[in-house]
């Protein structure tokens, strides 16, 4: 049954093709069933494949399937072939599972939109491309999925194409990520030139053989791959596209810009961990980038007014945690945070979508409030999501994953203490901005009257995700709390286990966990203090003055947009202002010269026959004279 693997990406693709060609002729109900059904069957297939995979699991760590040879010429052999191991199975499970829930949710959320079929077509295409990305056996096929998800992201951000700003946001997302993709592609060129192969496993085993740790080429390739990952995962310095990407419909933000696509960078680095292990300096860079991004994004999230932008910045910040974990070599911790994050962030986005839906597409949190009683389902699920994101201890999944990351940072031999403190501060900020949202949106007086609780198709996924956001964390619990290691045992077959500093013991782990708990609770408490209506400082902070320079700086994501505008965008527009070809000017000049010469010569053409006769005579005489000489 494991040979059904190829069906997993093909099923959503079939859905896409059906919707693309016959979408116009299907009823809404049929569209939704095709759209959700294709992803749902993919999820079921995943379950079947996974069952088969686990049957033989520890003995046979990976499963390889080649459909056909994609490129097979002149020393290059690349197949359309799938590679299933613990890591990709995890990704596939998340993509199909969360993807299915979001599809179901969208069936109701998008119900009144003109482009219903188009929406599901794009979403199905996205799922297919994302599955290709994670299942790819070779880097070229991975690149196919990589670009494919980029395209779908572009299409879905610009889904409401009549708004020019949305189009700009979509283009921005595609172009910024394309810069990363290009670096990634150059990395592929180098790897292929060196190892005559693009198979992920082969390349890495050859790299380990050929390159010593810290060798130049390994560093260069790792940096190039990192740029690619940074672009996709919206990390510094290519993070600017993600907040604008919120222009797309909310389920898109949930699926693409929270749960799956933006974590592709994490997947890439984890997938290429042998390579990154050869470049320890690059790993440090990853850790620092992750830390800086998580702090910048978290601080920006605190002051955003648009509910989706808050979540966008929080996504950047959470992916920053994953990068941090990758940077310190805690591969499994990063993936664990990916798992919990995709549950609670998808939940948060969907719940936010539910809020937006019932408030008639109002996204400004200052125009919300008091929704607790009107939208109880939404409130409770949102609360669970926010709690998980802030890492409320013991009961939420976010706590276990974040704790694991911070513990790894604390105990890793390739980390520094200040990184840990930074991450801890980030955890505090996470609590602050998560609960700022809760208090702003669900407490206080009602500013916009909601239309009422959404229907079953939207509530169902919310509840399932809320359940997951609470329970997924129990897959991995630290020594101090039960010592469950299901997740790390499972992933240890695909990723190396985290190294610990010598001499670290359980008591220090308990102390560290206490610090994380305190930080998260401190953040929540601060949020309550500052934003809970009726509390001490709320009146002073309620009419947050947004024109203060530091506030604008924070709201604009630390001014990166403006910086890039000055550095790249404006020079580029200056460069492309004139549609004229300078080389063509040269030829035109030649033509003008020829024309004027011709004009000058044509004065000799008087039209007088006698003049012509005379010139003939003179010419003849001159020729005769020439012969005479």
């Amino acid at each position, binding site marked *: 049954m494991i040979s059904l693997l190829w069906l997993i990406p093909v099923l959503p693709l079939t859905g896409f093709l059906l919707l693309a060609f016959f979408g116009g002729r299907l009823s809404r109900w049929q569209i939704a069933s095709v759209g959700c059904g294709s992803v749902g069957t993919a999820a079921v297939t995943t379950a079947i494949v996974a069952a088969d995979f686990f049957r033989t699991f520890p003995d046979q760590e990976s499963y390889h399937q080649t459909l056909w040879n994609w490129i097979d010429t002149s020393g290059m052999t690349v197949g359309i072939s799938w590679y299933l191991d613990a890591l990709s199975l995890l990704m596939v499970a998340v993509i199909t599972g969360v993807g299915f829930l979001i599809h179901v949710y969208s069936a109701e959320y998008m119900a009144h939109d003109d482009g219903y079929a188009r929406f599901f077509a794009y979403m199905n295409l996205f799922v297919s491309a994302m599955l290709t990305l994670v299942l790819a056996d070779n880097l070229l096929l991975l690149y196919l999925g990589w670009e494919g998800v980029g395209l779908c992201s572009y299409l879905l951000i610009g889904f409401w194409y009549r708004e020019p700003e949305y189009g700009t946001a979509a283009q921005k997302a595609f172009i910024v990520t394309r810069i990363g993709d290009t670096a990634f592609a150059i990395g592929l060129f180098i790897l292929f030139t060196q190892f005559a192969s693009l198979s992920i496993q082969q390349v890495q085993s050859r790299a380990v053989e050929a390159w010593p740790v810290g060798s130049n080429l390994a560093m260069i390739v790792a940096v190039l791959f990192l740029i690619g990952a940074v672009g996709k995962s919206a990390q510094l310095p290519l993070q600017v596209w993600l907040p604008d990407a919120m222009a797309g419909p909310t389920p898109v933000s949930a699926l693409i810009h929270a749960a799956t696509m933006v974590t592709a960078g994490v997947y890439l680095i984890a997938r290429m961990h042998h390579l990154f292990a050869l470049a320890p300096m690059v790993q440090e860079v990853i850790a620092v980038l992750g830390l800086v991004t998580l702090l910048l994004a978290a601080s920006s999230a605190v002051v955003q007014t648009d509910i989706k932008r808050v979540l966008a910045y929080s996504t950047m910040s959470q992916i920053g945690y994953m990068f941090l974990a990758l940077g310190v070599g805690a591969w499994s911790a990063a993936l664990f945070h990916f798992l919990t994050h995709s549950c609670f962030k998808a939940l948060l986005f969907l719940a936010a979508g539910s809020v937006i839906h019932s408030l008639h597409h109002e996204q400004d949190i200052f125009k919300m409030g008091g929704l607790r009683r009107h939208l109880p389902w939404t409130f409770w699920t949102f609360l669970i999501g926010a709690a998980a994101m802030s890492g409320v201890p013991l009961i939420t999944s976010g706590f276990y994953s974040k704790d694991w990351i911070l513990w790894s940072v604390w105990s890793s031999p390739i980390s520094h203490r200040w990184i840990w403190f930074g991450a801890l501060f980030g955890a505090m900020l996470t609590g602050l901005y998560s609960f700022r949202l809760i208090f702003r949106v669900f407490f206080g007086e009602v500013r916009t009257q909601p239309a009422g609780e959404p229907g079953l198709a939207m509530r169902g996924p919310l509840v399932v995700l809320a359940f997951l956001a609470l329970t997924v964390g129990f897959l991995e619990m630290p020594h101090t709390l039960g010592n469950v290691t299901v997740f790390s045992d499972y992933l240890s077959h695909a990723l190396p286990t985290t190294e610990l500093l010598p001499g670290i013991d359980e008591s220090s782990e308990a102390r560290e966990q206490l610090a994380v708990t305190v930080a998260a609770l401190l953040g929540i408490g601060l949020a309550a203090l500052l934003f809970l209506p009726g509390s001490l400082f709320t009146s002073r902070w309620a009419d947050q003055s947004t024109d203060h320079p530091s506030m604008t700086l924070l709201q604009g994501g630390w001014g990166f947009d403006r910086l890039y505008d000055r550095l790249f965008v404006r020079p580029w527009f200056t460069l492309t202002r004139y549609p004229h070809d300078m080389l063509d000017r040269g030829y035109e000049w030649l033509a003008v010269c020829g024309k004027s010469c011709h004009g000058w010569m044509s004065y000799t053409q008087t039209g007088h*026959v006698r003049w012509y006769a005379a010139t003939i005579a003179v010419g003849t005489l001159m020729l005769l004279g020439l012969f005479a000489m």
Partner: protein
Amino acid sequence: MLSTPALVLAIMLFALGLIGLLSRRNILYMLLSLEIMLNAAALAFIAGGARWGQVDGEIMFLFILTLAAAEVSVALGIVLQLSHRFRTLDADAFCELRG
């Protein structure tokens, strides 16, 4: 024995024809001058033929004659057209082909 003076005469006639061609503005005179020049050329051929006792000179004369006939028939047709159109025989008036 007579060929040398005949050649001299040919040159003189040719020069006269050229002078006529260049100096007269009346298109009819220009055609006459052309005929003179053609004749001068024919004379030169005949003289050459006589000098070497060969028939080629006369054959060339025949060709020149043919050429002249064809030329004159077309040229006079053109003269008629031009005079009809421009109401003048002034060759300088027919300068629509100038650059």
